[in-house]
């Protein structure tokens, strides 16, 4: 049995990961630690896991791995604690709120000899993999440009608190797609430009929309819409899309297209309910293999840093109204 715990239930993805831990064989859900006792106890009750009001107490029980789903700014201190306790780490994205914090996380894990894996579940999407296979096959010929989006509803809570999240929509929604771009081409982003809007959509006192332009060293350019531009009544949480414009054709992916459309008079609701394969389950399963020592992490802290750097460069570009050349910080 591989013993896995969850550090903090602050992030909205925590319940999905907890449910995965419950469903996976050979996993012992060792507990949930959360200094917010009400939140942590409720989650522990819901998922049938022991509750610990302190991180140290859970880590002291001896864990193979932890999932960190705290506020972004707390990723570094929790990574340090977990690494010292020799637990492998699956850390929610973005890796951190600054490059310095992220580098420290990578170093702490290296010193302790534990794996640091970043939660980029889109890498497990069969639609994303099909897109990657088509690109890798060369069938499209030379790739010219990418038009991508990661749009969602406004998540609320600490996500709109720059002190805890490191930003708003742009830091929240840049990293998934940029990780895919980095993974597909393994050609570093060399230039970033962005127009970022604060209070354009939600009046929450933080950025809620961003159009990011990026250019890879191999010459491919693209844009990413990293926004909370889906209203609360939007029938699905948001999207992850990528359109590839290439020499021999055009390839378009919407990762969340696999839905049924539910129109209910019961609660006067419209919902597009997804039926795509469970990418969170695939991510957590992979992490359990990493935590049990079966393999190294395929989504590294460096990958997390590369994606974060684009988000941070976007903020810099928007502030200076100039393109930013990478590496910049």
């Amino acid at each position, binding site marked *: 049995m591989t013993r896995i715990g969850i550090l903090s239930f602050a992030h909205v993805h925590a319940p999905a990961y907890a449910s995965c831990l419950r469903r996976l064989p050979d996993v012992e859900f060792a507990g949930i630690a959360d200094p917010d006792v009400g939140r942590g106890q409720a989650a522990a009750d819901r998922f049938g896991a022991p509750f610990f009001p302190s991180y140290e107490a859970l880590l002291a029980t001896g864990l193979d791995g932890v999932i960190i789903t705290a506020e972004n700014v707390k990723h570094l201190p929790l990574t340090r604690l977990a690494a010292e306790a020799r637990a492998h780490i699956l850390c929610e994205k973005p890796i951190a709120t600054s490059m310095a914090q992220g580098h420290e996380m990578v170093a702490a894990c290296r010193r302790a000899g534990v794996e640091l894996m970043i939660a980029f579940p889109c890498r497990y999407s069969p639609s994303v993999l099909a897109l990657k296979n088509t690109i890798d096959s060369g069938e499209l010929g030379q790739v010219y440009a990418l038009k991508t989006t990661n749009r969602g509803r406004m998540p609320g809570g600490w996500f709109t608190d720059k002190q805890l999240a490191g930003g708003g929509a742009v830091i929240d929604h840049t990293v998934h797609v940029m990780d895919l771009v980095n993974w597909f081409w393994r050609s570093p982003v060399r230039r970033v430009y962005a127009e970022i809007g604060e209070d354009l959509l939600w009046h929450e006192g933080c950025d809620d929309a961003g159009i990011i332009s990026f250019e890879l060293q191999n010459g491919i350019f*693209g844009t990413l819409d990293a926004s909370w531009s889906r209203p609360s*009544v*939007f029938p699905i949480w948001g999207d992850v899309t990528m359109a590839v414009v290439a020499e021999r054709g*055009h390839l378009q992916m919407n990762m969340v297209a696999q839905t049924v459309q539910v129109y209910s008079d019961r609660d006067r609701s419209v919902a597009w309910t997804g039926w795509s394969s469970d990418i969170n389950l695939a991510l957590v399963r992979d992490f359990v293999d990493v935590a049990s020592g079966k393999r190294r992490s395929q989504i590294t802290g460096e990958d997390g840093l590369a994606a974060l750097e684009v988000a941070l460069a976007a903020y810099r570009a928007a502030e200076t109204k100039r*393109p930013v050349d990478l590496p910049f910080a």
Partner: protein
Amino acid sequence: MKRVGIIGVGTMGNVHANAWRATQAQLAGVYDIDEAKARAAAERHGVVAFANREVLLESVDIVDICTPTYTHKDNVVAAARAGKHVICEKPMALSLEDCAEMIHAAESSGVRLFIAQVVRFFPEYATAKRAIDDGAIGKVGVVRLTRGGSHPSEGAATWFAQEYLSGGIVLDLMVHDIDYARWLAGDVERVYCRRFLGSGADYALVTLRFRDGAIGHLEGSWAFPAGIFRTAFDIAGDGGLIKADSEISSPLHLRLKQQEGAKGGTVVPSSPLMPEDNPYLLEIKHFLDCVESGAEFLVTARDAMAAVQIALAARQSALTGEPVALAPLGV
């Protein structure tokens, strides 16, 4: 009854001719430097083919200019000096100097000048604008517009494919969405563009910053495989979202089985409307109504010039890799 003459009877000239024939005005005749084209169009529409531009200008009250973009200024100035009201295809011209000269020629001759930014008359775009004006999505924050098909070198009129004649993807095609974006979100402060221009492909992604803070993203493509033409918008405000996509809203999709020796597998979507809802007819009727009543056009010549300015800035940004700040038009 107003008499109308069309200069230039390629694709758009014939589209306009059909529209004019459904109005209260009289399509008097056409002129084209290609005599065979002029004769064919004249026969098709049951009108005369004028021997030259001067005869046309002497014979009509309204001149409709559907020539290639690089000839717009010359034709508009000639028509204005002859004292004729002018409707001219988009984009207005290839340079701001030409746009200013066209406006000056019309104003000093006391004639009306209308640039046919037809997207404002397309039903899905007009419907979205009405909903936004109605407050359905609150204040506009993010405007995303997309428009694209295959490269014009695959079609008949090859001047489109020449940057110095048509202005390329950004000026010729994206000027539609640039104008629409301005209609929704107002004047633009800054423009950034990345573009791929190669054999058989012209593709651009434009980022706009509007003066009131909203942001915009425009995709223009002449890089898709043949058989695809797609338009879409996604406009988010602080109170909601309006979306449309021609791939979804086309009621008909024709898919033919592959025939021996012929290309197969192409899907041809269509979105049929009653004749009175044809956007080109609505545009021409609007022009005619405004000429007769003296009312302001829905899209003024200065609006059309502002769209050209944004397109030129985007082209410059694509070349330099830097954002371009826009100055006031100065006319």
